[in-house]
């Protein structure tokens, strides 16, 4: 079973990652910029990196091509942002982690554990009437497990949001994609009805 995530026309899901200097106010700055410019974000995760002076920030957002470009550029413009990368056209790994408490009676417990095993998830806490499950994976994988667990009754859930990194080996570059003229915002007078050109 797979879950289709459907976006409004022209929008696509993108994962952008940025290295930022680890200092107070940075998260507020990034979050404020997203809010002020009206960018829609699904998740925003900040965490430590191998370098104590830097944090990695991972953003998932739904946006059209133009907006996405602005998201990238506006992020890069912020003073504490050292580097920005989006994973479009790259092989990368993304992971989300969820803790899910499912209400389940002792009779149904093994049924649920079977599903958990199929997803290579883990049961990390057991109570008389519930199980706590830990799962990591892509957003889709998590969504699909959630869908299966719903009938049993999900009591509580917490998710970390997506983090992502590029793979060490990248597939050989195909010929560079031709500039898509279609995505360009068209400027013309055709839309303006009855409007004369500049007088000559």
């Amino acid at each position, binding site marked *: 079973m797979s879950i289709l995530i459907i976006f409004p026309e022209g929008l696509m899901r993108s994962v952008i*990652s940025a*290295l930022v*200097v680890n200092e*107070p*106010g940075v998260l*507020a*700055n990034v979050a*404020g*910029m997203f809010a*002020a410019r009206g960018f829609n974000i699904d998740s925003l995760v900040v965490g430590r990196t*191998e*370098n104590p*002076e*830097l944090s*990695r920030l991972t953003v998932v957002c739904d946006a059209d091509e*133009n907006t996405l*470009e*602005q998201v990238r*550029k*506006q992020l*890069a*413009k912020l*003073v*504490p942002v*050292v*580097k920005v*990368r989006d994973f479009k056209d790259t092989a990368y790994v993304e992971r989300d982690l969820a803790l899910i408490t499912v209400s389940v009676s002792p009779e149904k417990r093994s049924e649920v554990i079977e599903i958990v095993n199929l997803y290579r998830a883990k049961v990390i806490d057991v109570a008389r009437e519930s199980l706590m499950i830990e799962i990591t994976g892509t957003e889709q994988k998590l969504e699909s497990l959630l869908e299966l667990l719903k009938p049993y009754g999900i009591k509580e859930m917490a998710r970390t949001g997506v983090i992502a*990194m*590029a*793979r*060490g*080996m*990248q597939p050989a570059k195909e010929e560079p994609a031709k500039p898509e003229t279609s995505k*360009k*915002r*068209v*400027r*013309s*007078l055709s*839309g*303006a009805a009855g*409007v*004369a*050109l*500049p*007088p*000559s």
Partner: protein
Amino acid sequence: MTMMNETIPAVKKQSTTDKPKYKGKTGARILHEMLIGPHKVEVMFGYPGGAILPVFDELYRTPAKFILNRHEQASGHCADGYARATGKPGVALVTSGPAATNMVTPLATAMMDSIPIICISGQVATKVIGNDAFQEADVTGITRPCTKWNYLVKDIRELPRVINEAFIVATSGRPGPVLIDLPKDISAGVCPEEVDDTPRPHIAKRLNASLTGGSNKQIHEAAELINRSQKPVLYVGGGAIISGAWKEVRELSEKGNIPCTTTLLGMGAFDELNPRTLHMLGMHGSAYANYAVQECDCLIAIGARFDDRVTGNLATFAPHAKIIHIDIDPSSISKTVDVDVPVVGDAKLSLQALLPLIETRERKGWFEQIRVWKEKYPFKYFDDSAHAKPQYVIEEINRQTKSEAIITTGVGQHQMWAAQFYRWRYPRQFLTSGGLGTMGFGLPAAVGAALGMPGKTVIDIDGDGSYLMTCYELATIAEYNIPVKVVILNNDFQGMIKQWQDLFYEQRYSQSKMKNPNFAAMAEAFGVKGIRCDDKKMVPKVVDQMLSHDGPVVVDFFVEPNEHVYPMVPAGKGLHELTLGVVANAGGVAAGRECFGLDAGSLA
């Protein structure tokens, strides 16, 4: 493939054999020494208060010039005017809480127009931050969206580095305001050891942006496009002035034989007495500039950001043009208008690389077309009322100052008329709040400019509404005898609001008519010479009197209240759908409304 594993090298330790630079000094002393020393600050603006007192104590015998304003907003605009006139960062010192919140408007003004300001605000002691202490406000939180970057200094050992970084951030790349929030225990506290003041690498590398032009490939593509074009137009913004590219802009126009239009902030980047000038473009720009943009086949944007007041309806903006965009800020590129050739880098360096590749073209047809437009649709007004026309007053000032004065403005009709009827010839000559449109900007900005450019004639061309917003600065002007000339184009109205109410709201003057004080008497009360001019025949004489007066002077010109700014591109319309207003001026207000064919509901 590795990603993002750029490491930041450990900071270098400074040799301790030198005479201590910071050890044993208070934060206030460190700040003062660094400002007047390595950062060469000559003029500061501000207002004291509890949390910033240690810094003001240090300023008691400062060799720098300190101007005590009467409101922190004025300090901010003064620093802004100083920065716009000189190109050097302006410095403002204010206290915590309400003083810092008063700085929000000037910071946002500077942010929108990319002006370097360093604002140092006092803050309550670090121990009580977050406790709702007296005059405490979350200033870094409040100013985050209206500064390029801000700092809250929580450890005195960071202070020297923060000050150095603030100047780099404010002046590099696309400049902007930076705020340093300085808690009282940091400014009064003593630095315990010698500390490193080297900016961190991610800050230091920002300097490179101003030292590089566009890539070779981009430059060559741009040159090819320009050389191939039949009907090119240069569209020059404030970025060309910031990067000092005005010579190169003129050369490009000369060598490539390209007509040039400037934005409100780009005024003076091109010499408006040059026959290739198209003057200002946009909502109240010249008809010929707007027509030329709509007809051109190649639009060369230099340090401009395709603001909505410039482009009009985006869907019909420059429909035939390939667009080249030279800008130091990558986020400006393709933000609102898709660009064909982006050139990311410093405007001056990019143009220097571009110039040798440009070939001269005759473009006879194009210039002939522009000549016809210019002849048919010049900026104009009619001398058809009992009162002086505001445009006439500006023309007279232009004539008598030989287009050489520094002019500041508030926001509204008078600002647009100044842009249209003064002849801009030099960069940093026209100081106006473009992006944010801050009323009350004119007077304090003029004070800042007068201090930055002593010996220059500085005139604030203001409206009665804008002027009243910061008129308390007369006290500052009188105290320091700052030779600012103030011209109030007084129509007892918020003129631009009235214009829109005339055109789109059936002359319902909701809250736009104002009973004004006697501006001349008010100036005299502050100790500044005041003149009132009611008679249009007296305008030349009064302008002469104003210019020849040694010291500050306020002149209240009573002007025709029913005058509108034209041409006008109504909101939401394309640049070519402008209204010339000739009908409106001749036939009165109602005819003006008809020629728009619009009602209030259809306006954004």
